[in-house]
C-alpha cells in the first residue's frame, strides 16, 4: 500500500467511526432526554479499535465543528497523518495534518452530508 493509499484508508476508517458516533448522537437526540454524557467510540485510524470514550454532548458538538478534528483514546495517535491539539484524561483531540490528510477528512465529511 502506498503512502497515499494508507493516508486515505486511515481517513476512511476515522470517517466510519465518526459516522457511528453521529448515529449514537442521533439516537440520543431522538430520545428527547437531556443526557450528561455520550459514549462515543474512539475515532482513531485503527479499524479494529472500538474503545469507548465518555463525552458530554457539548464536547461532541464542539468536536464536530471542524471536520479535521477527531476524538481518540490517549495514545492512539498516528503521527504521520495527525497531531494532538488537546488532551484530557478521557480522550485526546487530534487534528489531521494540512495537505492530503486534512483534505481527505474534509472530503469525506462533505460526502457524508451530501
Amino acid at each position: 500500500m502506498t503512502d497515499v493509499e494508507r493516508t486515505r484508508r486511515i481517513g476512511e476508517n476515522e470517517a466510519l467511526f465518526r459516522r457511528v458516533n453521529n448515529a449514537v448522537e442521533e439516537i440520543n437526540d431522538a430520545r428527547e432526554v437531556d443526557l450528561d454524557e455520550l459514549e462515543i467510540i474512539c475515532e482513531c485510524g485503527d479499524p479494529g479499535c472500538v474503545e469507548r470514550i465518555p463525552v458530554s454532548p457539548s464536547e461532541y458538538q464542539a468536536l464536530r465543528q471542524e471536520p479535521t478534528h477527531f476524538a481518540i483514546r490517549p495514545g492512539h495517535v498516528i503521527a504521520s497523518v495527525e497531531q494532538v491539539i488537546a488532551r484530557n484524561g478521557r480522550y485526546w483531540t487530534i487534528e489531521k495534518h494540512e495537505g492530503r490528510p486534512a483534505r481527505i477528512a474534509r472530503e469525506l465529511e462533505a460526502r457524508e452530508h451530501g
Partner: protein
Amino acid sequence: MTEADRVNENPTTPERIAANDAAFRHANEGISETAEEYELTEGLLPFICECADPRCTAVTQLTRQEYEEIRSNPAWFMNVPGHEVAAREYGRVRKTNDRYVIVEKIGTAGEIARELDPRVAEAEERDGVA
C-alpha cells in the same frame, strides 16, 4: 395522541420494542452504507447494538457478510451478548457467538419489525406490491 406518544407511554409494549429496534437498525444501515462507500469490506466493522433497551448504544463488531446475514430477515436483530434479555417474551435467540447474538422478534414485535424494515418496503415497491 400520536402513535409515537402512545408507544412512549408504555415502554414495554411490543410496538415500543420494535420501534426502538428499527431506530438502531436505521443507524446501522447508514454505517453499512458508509463502509460500502469507502470499500471497507474486509474485516470487522463497528455496529450499534440493536437490543430493545432504548438507552443502549453499545458497539460491537461484525463483518459485512455477518451484518447482511442478519439483515436478510426483517425480524432478526443484532444484540451485544447479554442484551437479548431486553426483548423479553417478544424475541428468541437464533444464533450466538462471542461478539453478537441474533434475536428474532416474534408475534406482534416481529410483524412490526417487518413493517418498519425499509428493505422490505423497497423490495415491495420494486416488485410492484401494493
